[in-house]
């Protein structure tokens, strides 16, 4: 696990089309051809927080935006604008806990396969030592 992000804050916005208040990823810690690690400091004023905790839709949105950052990193390196990505399918998604606002998420993504613009990724979201969510996500990136 990398300690320092290779991209954070405003720089991450170059990889996703979302803008505040729906930005749900704020750091990229590592990226390779078939894996990546992202992060998010959960802002208590985040629109996906309820009763001091990040809600299920917020966790899914964080996972989806993390997948988009991973999928679009190549475009970023080439200086191209972010492409639109769509969640095509969530598979075997398990949410173990709702993390508290103010804490930080670290998310690991592994690319399982790509075909016809569709990417299948394994996603694991953690908050410190605690598992938050895991599953598979199918993302379609519009060219």
């Amino acid at each position: 696990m990398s300690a320092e992000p290779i991209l954070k804050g405003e720089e991450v916005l170059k990889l996703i089309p979302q803008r505040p208040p729906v930005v749900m990823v704020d750091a990229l810690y590592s990226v390779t051809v078939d894996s990546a690690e992202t992060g998010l400091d959960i802002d208590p004023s985040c629109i996906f927080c309820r009763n001091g905790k990040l809600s299920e839709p917020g966790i899914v949105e964080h996972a989806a935006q993390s997948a988009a950052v991973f999928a679009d990193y190549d475009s970023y390196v080439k200086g191209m604008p972010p492409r639109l990505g769509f969640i095509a399918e969530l598979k075997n998604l398990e949410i173990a806990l709702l993390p508290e606002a103010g804490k930080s998420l670290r998310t690991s993504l592994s690319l399982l396969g790509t075909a016809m613009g569709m990417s299948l990724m394994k996603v694991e979201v953690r908050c410190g030592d605690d598992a938050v969510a895991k599953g598979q996500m199918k993302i379609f990136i519009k060219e």
Partner: protein
Amino acid sequence: MEKAELIQKINAAMAEEFEVEESVFTPEADIKSTLELDSLSLVDLVALVESNFGIKINGTDIAKIRNFGALYDLIYEKTQSK
């Protein structure tokens, strides 16, 4: 790995992933209708093959495959040239 062993392994993996009886996997059977593959689920087959056999396959190549016999051939060739 012998081709017969490889076919057995592919069939077992597909049966589990797509929840289809192994007996329907014959070399002549149409792959798309048997597995109910569409543009959304094609990537599941690619991921299954890559994770089980440690090979990289092109999504466009697999989209052109019509029957299981052609799929077995493609995977066998890729595993032999690893």
